[in-house]
């Protein structure tokens, strides 16, 4: 903390302003010109410029602590340039000019992909040491104009910065660069934002990016993406990683996605998944698209009608993690037939030692797996339900459909003509 208090900004400038400026030693001899800056991207401490690339095709840098003065039109060194002072690029360093300028980066704050027009640098003094610190990337029109020598036309425009801590670069990095810190940053984004971000990337980067993420975070973001993007990502991922991703997702969604992949690919992925999860997905995939069966999930809460309210709470604590909704509890006999339903509210209000069979409602609205989406929607609306159970002819419980599932069908993400058509159809059928 102490050194921070003494930090003193000597000068600020843009990378584009100092790139190409001459470097002189104290005797006024020209040593070279500033071609690029090496910065430490990750690792200990704040990011800072570590060296100056000063000659074409020469891989060693002038270390930054050999710089006495840095201005807009020249750089002066502390002493004469000696061969043994020069340092090569370290594994945790990158060149800003080569790997950052003009490239796409992720703006974590705005959750979108932007292009780097320029880089803002601070020349600071802390005690008797001097540093160059990259502060922000400039993504605005004014930065663009500056690069083209037209900044005077945009003097009234504010510079648009993304501060250094909110950027995530995308270019192929050297293997040694640590990813952990970057992951931590991304994990803080809302899955829906992360999904939008990934959709903005080109397909090659999408896959790399997904592989870098924590699998649970990746799965959440993946669920939020549009179906086409999901398919594309799965097709480019290696099968092991794809199956890990799918395992983290609800089986009904997995079944829908796999249903749109080529059969061979879907089979390969299912075989790599845990047998239990894969089995559920296989059962769901049997149902045709547009039917209740294809919408339902098997992750609902089923309890035996024999148990008491206290026992029910104990079981709920375990079951709640996996289930898609816990608002309705389905009471299922040993032979899997559905005998009643109980809402969480009713369970909360009941006496602790009451038996569920005495509390449950036995008049249940159900649908069959071959019923159409419209039938499901009508029933949910007519009876004001949040969830509807799906049963077979013998009244055996197969799964549930939530309002969310049906909403996704009726209102896709983007406003488009198709949405309009769907809306129109659903309105008519519900009325009829």
């Amino acid at each position: 903390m102490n050194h921070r208090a003494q930090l003193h900004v000597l000068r600020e400038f843009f990378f584009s302003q100092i790139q190409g400026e001459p470097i002189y030693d104290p005797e006024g001899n020209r040593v070279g010109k500033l071609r690029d800056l090496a910065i430490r991207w990750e690792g200990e401490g704040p990011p800072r410029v570590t060296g100056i690339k000063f000659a074409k095709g020469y891989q060693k840098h002038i270390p930054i602590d050999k710089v006495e003065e840095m201005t807009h039109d020249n750089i002066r060194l502390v002493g004469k340039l000696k061969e043994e002072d020069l340092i090569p690029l370290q594994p945790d360093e990158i060149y800003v000019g080569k790997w950052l300028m003009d490239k796409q980066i992720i703006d974590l704050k705005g959750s979108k992909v932007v292009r780097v027009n320029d880089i803002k640098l601070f020349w600071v003094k802390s005690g008797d040491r001097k540093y160059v610190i990259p502060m922000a990337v400039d993504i605005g029109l004014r930065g663009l104009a500056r690069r083209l020598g037209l900044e005077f036309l945009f003097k009234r425009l504010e510079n648009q910065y993304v501060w250094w801590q909110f950027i995530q670069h995308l270019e192929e990095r050297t293997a040694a660069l640590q990813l952990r810190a970057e992951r931590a940053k991304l994990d803080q984004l809302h899955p829906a934002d992360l999904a939008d971000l990934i959709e903005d990337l080109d397909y090659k980067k999408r896959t790399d990016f997904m592989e870098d993420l924590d699998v649970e975070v990746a799965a959440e973001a993946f669920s939020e993406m549009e179906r086409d993007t999901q398919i594309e990502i799965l097709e480019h991922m290696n099968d092991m990683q794809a199956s890990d991703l799918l395992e983290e997702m609800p089986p009904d969604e997995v079944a829908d996605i796999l249903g749109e992949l080529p059969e061979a690919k879907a089979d390969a992925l299912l075989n790599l998944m845990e047998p239990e999860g894969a089995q559920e997905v296989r059962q769901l995939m049997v149902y045709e698209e547009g039917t209740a069966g294809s919408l339902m999930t098997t992750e609902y809460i089923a309890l035996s009608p024999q148990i008491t309210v206290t026992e029910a709470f104990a079981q709920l604590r375990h079951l709640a993690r996996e289930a898609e909704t816990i608002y309705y509890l389905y009471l299922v006999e040993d032979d899997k037939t559905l005998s009643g339903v109980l809402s969480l509210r009713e369970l909360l209000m009941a006496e602790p030692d009451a038996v569920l069979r005495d509390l449950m409602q036995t008049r249940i609205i159900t649908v069959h797996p071959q019923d159409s989406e419209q039938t499901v929607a009508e029933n949910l609306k007519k009876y004001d339900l949040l969830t509807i159970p799906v049963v077979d002819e013998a009244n055996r419980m197969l799964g549930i459909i939530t309002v969310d599932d049906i909403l996704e069908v009726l209102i896709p993400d983007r406003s488009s003509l198709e949405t309009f058509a769907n809306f129109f159809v659903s309105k008519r059928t519900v009325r009829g």
Partner: protein
Amino acid sequence: MRGRFANLSRRIWIFLAIMGPGIITANVDNDAGGITTYSVAGATHGYKLLWTIIPMTLVLIMVQEICIRLGAVTGKGLADLIRERTGVRWAAFIMVGMILGDLGNIISEFAGIAASLELFGVSKYISVPVALVFIWFLVHRGTYKLVEKIFLGACVFYLSYVISGCMANPPWGTVMKELVVPNFSLSGDYIIILVGVIGTTIAPWQQFYIQASVVEKGITTKEYVYSKLDNTIGCIACNIVAMFIIVACAATIHVHGIKIESAQEAALALKPLAGHWAFVLFAIGLLNASLFSATILPLSTAYYVCEAFGFEGGIDHTWKEAPIFYWLYTLLVVIGALVILFPNIPLISVMFWSQVINGVLLPFVLIFMLLLVNNKDLMGEYVNGPVLNGLSWIVVAVLITLSSMMVITSFLQ
């Protein structure tokens, strides 16, 4: 047997899903300017320019394939690659040129819309505003998938030229012979129109458009074979249409020694010579081509400008998400349409400058394309092979020579 059939039908389905970028791009080559050029070529020189059709098809396939490959391997648009690999100045130079050149083209598309509907007695003060509103809403309200389907559907209308070519009842024997026997003349007139024909077929903006639509579709190296087929079919279809336009005008207007300077005059001249329906089809073809290109050109211009400068772009975004994209798009179509409505705008000199700008830009774009496609860091195993590479450089050299000739001759005129 059944397995083989299933496999075949699977391949056909994949092709149908991938189809689009190549066919659409190739068809936009036959825009209002293209149809004018071919009509004038046929009317002035008869069948003497037919031999260019086959080599031009091959060159077009080759050039567009490079962009498809660039898009499929890198997942990035051409503007994006130029910005990242050659820096902001080159990107800005090319983009400013493209905006100006494309604006000229857009104006000529609206002129085509006005001219084709005037043939049916519709005033341009009605047709142009209606077309403007139609085009603007199509892009504004549609998703990319929907718009692409409409574009593909519009390609069918190009067949009207094939039919009207047949109705002109040309001597098929002569047509076949002229198609394969090169026929070169050194007269200045002939060279100008030859270069014009080539210039209208291979334009800078197409390379950006085809690569962007390959990327937008998410086509990768796996589906790239299908994209190549899409491209080949598109280029062949485009040049067949061009051939029939030349044939229609050669068999009628040229034989009677009538002089024409525009597609509109060509359609009118066809009426007494090849019948009312040949005239109607010719005019409908012109309307379709102009409308089609007037939609795609501003769309793709806005798209790659945003790509180069890092603004959000693409019609799957909302106006709020991608304001610059939509403003640029709107400005381009509105200016394109308004210019036609002002009576005193010197259309000829607008066309002239747009042609010159495109001619100047083409060499840069082609050279960047070849440098990019030969970059091993970028393309890996998909760089050009030695034979293809040699061939590409030769073709590019020829195209550059021709486009410089065009620029020079247009100044000499």
